[in-house]
């Protein structure tokens, strides 16, 4: 493996994993924009990830797509077998498993261990080398169960029935996970969404998920907007404070993200309610997972690499930082 300007490169496979510049052969772990760029030649990915890329970019962006179901093996170069294992991050997210000359490397992409009905749960794949993210790799990050955070939200909706609860979520994954979690908590009201969240939510529905009744805010007539008091509206984080939100009746800005554990981050967003909902592994899960894979070597791609490196070394694992560029932690999705 090599770190090149385009991204992480696997020499015997002649392929990049999640390259951030167009390359001839790419393995894409999942559909988030910082991992799945357009313009590659051949793209190895799960069928769901390819569908997401098709929805986000043009059809032509993934003309060279090779769909690999989880556990389906393909020899992508002489003696190099590739297969994908579930990563539990978002719909279709995968770890890339490369077997070559009797040894194995697993590139986990982004992953989490907390429950998420929108995607297949993370699977531990025994390996020699484990490549991990470190987005939330500090002991201060412990993600609570999502049910706890949904409870917090619903309590606020009940206590402040005049306020329209406006939740900032990423369009891919977080939005749909939250919608399903609300339904699981027994919330039966119509959910309202910002236009930017529509296409991907529809895609999830096509792929078999049921979010109950939901509507686009823009479809409501001017006069009907007041009906949004006491209701839940989902929007991209950037829309929380922009002009769009002023059309809503007394909006209460809520932000759902793993960063919301840190008070200063909540204030930065001017959120009045913080839901700690993360699609990444928290501190304990990052360490637990690295240990469970049995890897002798762990390479850390992005995030708070120093702390994870330190903690893994203490456990007798050879850990090193890859210093991948192009992953801005603040935007990590």
């Amino acid at each position, binding site marked *: 493996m090599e770190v090149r300007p385009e991204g992480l490169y696997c020499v015997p496979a002649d392929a990049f994993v999640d390259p951030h510049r167009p390359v001839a052969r790419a393995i894409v772990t999942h559909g988030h924009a910082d991992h799945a760029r357009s313009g590659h030649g051949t793209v190895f990915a799960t069928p769901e990830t390819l569908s997401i890329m098709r929805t986000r970019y043009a059809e032509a962006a993934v003309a060279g797509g090779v769909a690999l179901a989880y556990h389906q093996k393909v020899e992508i170069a002489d003696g190099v077998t590739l297969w994908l294992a579930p990563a539990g991050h978002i719909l279709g997210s995968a770890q890339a498993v490369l077997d070559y000359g009797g040894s194995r490397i697993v590139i986990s992409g982004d992953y989490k261990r907390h429950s998420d009905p929108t995607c297949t749960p993370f699977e531990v794949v025994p390996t020699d080398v484990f490549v991990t993210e470190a987005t939330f790799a*500090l*002991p*201060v990050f412990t993600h609570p169960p999502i049910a706890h955070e949904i409870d917090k939200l619903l309590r606020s909706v009940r206590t402040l029935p005049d306020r329209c609860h406006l939740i900032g979520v990423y369009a891919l994954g977080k939005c749909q996970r939250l919608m399903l979690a609300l339904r699981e908590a027994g919330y039966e009201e119509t959910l309202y969404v910002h236009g930017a969240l529509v296409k991907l939510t529809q895609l999830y529905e096509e792929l078999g998920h049921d979010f109950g009744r939901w509507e686009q805010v823009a479809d409501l007539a001017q006069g009907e907007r007041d009906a949004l008091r006491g209701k839940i509206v989902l929007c991209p984080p950037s829309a929380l404070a922009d002009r769009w939100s002023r059309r809503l009746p007394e909006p209460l800005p809520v932000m759902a993200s793993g960063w919301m554990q840190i*008070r200063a981050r909540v204030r930065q967003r*001017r959120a009045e309610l913080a839901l700690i909902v993360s699609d990444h592994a928290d501190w304990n899960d990052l360490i637990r997972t690295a240990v469970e894979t049995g890897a002798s070597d762990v390479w850390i791609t992005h995030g708070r690499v120093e702390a994870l490196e*330190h*903690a893994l070394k203490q456990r007798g694992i050879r850990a090193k930082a890859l210093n991948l560029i192009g992953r801005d932690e603040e935007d990590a999705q």
Partner: protein
Amino acid sequence: MRRFAQLLDDIYFTNSTRAKEKILATYLAETPDPDRGWALAAIAGTLKFDLFKRNLTKTLITERMDEELFALSYDYVGELSETVALAWPVNTPADTLPALSEIISSFQRKGKTEIQAYLAELLDMMTPPERWALLKLGTRGLRIGMSARSVKRTLANVKGVDLPVIEELWHGLEPPYETLFAWIEGRAEMPDISQALVFSPVMLAHPIDEDSELARISGETHVAEWKWDGIRIQISANSSGARLFSRTGDDISHSFPDLIEAVDFDAVIDGELLVKVDGAIGAFNDLQQRLNKKKPSKALMAELPAHVIVYDILRLGENDPRALPLTERRDVLQAFMSDVVLERFSLSDFLEFETSDDLRALREQAASTGSLIEGLMIKDKSSPYVAGRPKHHWYKWKRDPMLLDAVLMYAQRGHGKRSSYFSDYTFGLWGPEDQLLPIGKAYFGFTDEELKQLDRWIRAHKLQRFGPVQEVEKELVFEVAFDGAQESKRHKSGYALRFPRISRIRWDKPAEEADRIEALAALVSA
């Protein structure tokens, strides 16, 4: 305690002041005494004691957590209590927590070693936001975006009275404010504070604008006084006793029993607290030794006796002269001064001047007193005594800061927003053997753009690393501004700077041309 932690979070995350006040009012209506009174005190900042020392928090976490992981976490979060609240290794919240008042009284009852165990026990049974609330409460560091004024306004609205009614009462009452709530709820008469030794909010000065305001000042309309480098205090006394307050209303009587003992009057006075050294007024450094002592020894009080330079009077017997013009209050003050112990109290002199040029000369004179006098106070003769910082009444005119060219030696990452930059700088002057001697540290005085430039420069000029401290090549010169310097045994250079900041980055200046330690010695002895 659980309800209190939730109150803090609700207020903290709410943006509008109005909504915050509504949340507080709801809490006060729903919560029994004495919990609500303690909560009120915590938010308004009127708690009189720490439940435990800030250091204890640090001790507890270092016993429980890898040092490097803690350092990285702290760097990232940027705030000790929050870091500890989040990284605390036990996460098994109890079904119920003790009441807020029970926690406060337990801490007060317990001895030093018991406190440590009790704090750890509480932290074990809490959620992260509850831990944060406890740590902030315990060290009186609550900042949840609600001012004491807003707290008082909440009370005024609940009772349906004007804000000044609450403000007058406020300083005469103490947590947990049970008599106050009894009155608010109509169960009792308004609390009587006439005999209480209360703190009256003080009058403050604006920095003078040399371009627009100075020209209007003359000896006809204004008086000038030295601005001593001590601390601003207020003494409130009657036949029942005396109390010494800091500018913010903290009772600091316990540190100055020698002064309290010398009080034999029925008045409220405003002045500057200093100490005497061999019969003459001492520097701030000398006063510092008294400020640090909760219970000063007889020997220390004999060596550094407390002294007050009095500038104003807020009450004399039954008489409240605050509405009178300054010159008439001065007459009252002079009459008062004829009766006090002269070793302990002296009257602030009115300096002779006619024009603003005379003031300029006086300010020069202040600069030549080492760090004894900080500059001038200039007051309008007609000004009444008004709490707060009213415009155009009182001005302060600090003397120019002292400047030295020092060489950057070490850099350290900042906290929070600045955690990705080297933003704390240690700098030094050339010593007798041509080695650099560190004289101080500064974290501000530069723009964000300069911060980025400095960060880049430091990354390109790294030498050794000592934990979080990065040594750099001794090539970059800072012009450092500071308000004074004292001899200090704790510093290798022998000096400590007061309020150092970077005034300019001298990219152009070769390090060899930076100042030598003798230059600082000369400034101090001046």
